[in-house]
């Protein structure tokens, strides 16, 4: 049986709800769960002050309502499954190491910051800094997957070290900024300054993109590894076309101001000649 939380009182200021996580709710009854503490502004409060709680914590966790001002849902989870029915606030799945979060709506900034395992799926749009490091951290995401079916904002995958981030729509600026390794795939348009400061890692785009002058064109080829990734994304429900699966990609190496071991792969829609 699952544990369900339905928002009945919207928070006036952001609600820090780390308690809404399988790590904290496992094995609890509805009554016990309602007593867990959340932080509302400068005071602590029981979960039950904002949510109606039903069921028991031995299955999935469902959270329903306009959760745009509810932060840190799923933080630190290592197993289990959460389904969010509605828009969700910042720091979703922060530091998670396993399990799955599905958002049937939009997500705020900082989706999955410094996560190292598990999967977050956002059916709508995500804000800025998806899969990124907390300001001041030397390393960001270290594993797991973030899949955004809609658009995402700026600085997707900032300081990412390992894992996979997929954006079905467009991304903002500085996609993969300071990327250490890992893979970012953007099916829509990439914003400005993609890959700025990247050391290693792969950023894949399906449309022409503005390239920084510190990136060098290498060749146009058909990377086999990318087929595995795109087939994986198809199985997750993303609209991967045969042209994308079988196509040729321009390979750009950069960022030369760093190690120059990173790569941008851009689907080559106009043949295999080097870009002018």
């Amino acid at each position: 049986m699952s544990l369900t939380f339905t928002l009945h009182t919207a928070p006036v200021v952001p609600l820090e709800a780390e308690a809404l996580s399988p790590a904290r709710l496992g094995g609890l009854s509805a009554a016990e769960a309602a007593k867990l503490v959340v932080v509302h502004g400068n005071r602590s409060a029981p979960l039950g002050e904002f949510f109606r709680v039903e069921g028991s914590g031995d299955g999935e966790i469902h959270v329903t309502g306009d959760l745009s001002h509810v932060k840190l849902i799923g933080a630190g989870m290592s197993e289990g499954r959460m389904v969010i029915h509605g828009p969700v606030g910042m720091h979703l799945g922060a530091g998670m190491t396993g399990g799955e979060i599905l958002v049937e709506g939009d997500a705020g900034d900082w989706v999955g910051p410094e996560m190292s395992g598990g999967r977050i799926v956002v059916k709508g749009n995500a804000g800025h800094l998806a899969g990124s490091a907390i300001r001041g951290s030397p390393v960001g995401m270290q594993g797991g997957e973030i899949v955004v079916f809609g658009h995402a904002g700026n600085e997707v995958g900032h300081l990412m070290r390992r894992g996979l981030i997929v954006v079905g729509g467009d991304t903002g600026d500085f996609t993969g900024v300071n990327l250490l390794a890992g893979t970012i795939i953007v099916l829509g348009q990439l914003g400005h300054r993609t890959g700025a400061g990247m050391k290693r890692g792969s950023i894949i785009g399906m449309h022409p993109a503005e390239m920084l002058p510190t990136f060098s064109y290498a060749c146009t080829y058909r990377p086999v590894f990318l087929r595995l990734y795109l087939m994986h994304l198809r199985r997750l429900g993303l609209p991967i076309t045969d042209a994308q699966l079988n196509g040729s990609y321009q390979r750009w190496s950069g960022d030369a101001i760093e190690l120059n071991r990173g790569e941008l792969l851009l689907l080559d829609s106009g043949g295999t000649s080097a870009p002018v």
Partner: protein
Amino acid sequence: MLIQATEIVDTFAEAFAMWAARLVITAETPEWALAAAQSMTGFATSVIGCKCEAGIEMPLAPEQTPDGRPGISVLLFAMNAEGVGKRLVERVGQCIMTCPSTACYNGLTGEQRVPVGSQLRYFGDRYQISKLLDGRRLWRVPVMDGEFLVDDQFGIQPAVGGGNILILGSDQVATLKAAEAAAAAMRGTPGAILPFPGGVVRSGSKPKSRYKFLHASTNDSYCPTLRGMSPETEVPEAAGSVLEIVIDGLDLAAVETAMRRGMQAAALAGALRITAGNYGGGLGQFQIHLHPLLAGAAA
């Protein structure tokens, strides 16, 4: 027991515990996947002289492979796990990585693994790239036609080697015809391979020799030209030729299935007699009795 006019001798094949791996080779076209597979399984007929036994298991359609390209599955067998690991690195490196457009993936689940891509990555001379997708680590090794993609680790498992049938015919032409039919029927058995050329071996051996420097020598009991001289000849007067088919399998069931298919096909193709090779049961870990194997199929 008879299948039509073919006598099936009431005996058993003696088979051995081995270790095995399965590789999935993909390429731009089926032809290039086949070229890599044929190269990789060359000089791999017997552990006696080749350190391993290997063969093509079956072709794979694009939808059956990890990257959606045409492919071939190959099985490799050795006497121990370490041997499998070493032979994989050698053969994947020299025969698959060298072949245009190929990629090479592990084809076995299971917990025991040997490093393959994690060894071959060094060929990339610091330019190699690791990718981790859904718990699977792969290596991208930069090569002249793009990249060679290979799994970091390959699964291995206990397996069965040396299943066999001996086909006796009136002369070389007739026996070859029966053996060809048997090999064709056995080829493509899931989990099994026929490691000898064309699946058939003409120089079957016995595990001893009068020469101290040799561990094995011609199986004189089945040499027709020695019928008058060999003290333990098994060749009847009507037989002018004997051919053997050796089967290695990921498990005993695969070996048995292949043997059953082979015996039925050889009998229908006019073999005089079908028997099997063993060492009295004192060497191998498995005994595959021919009559129960065929009786089970009839039932």
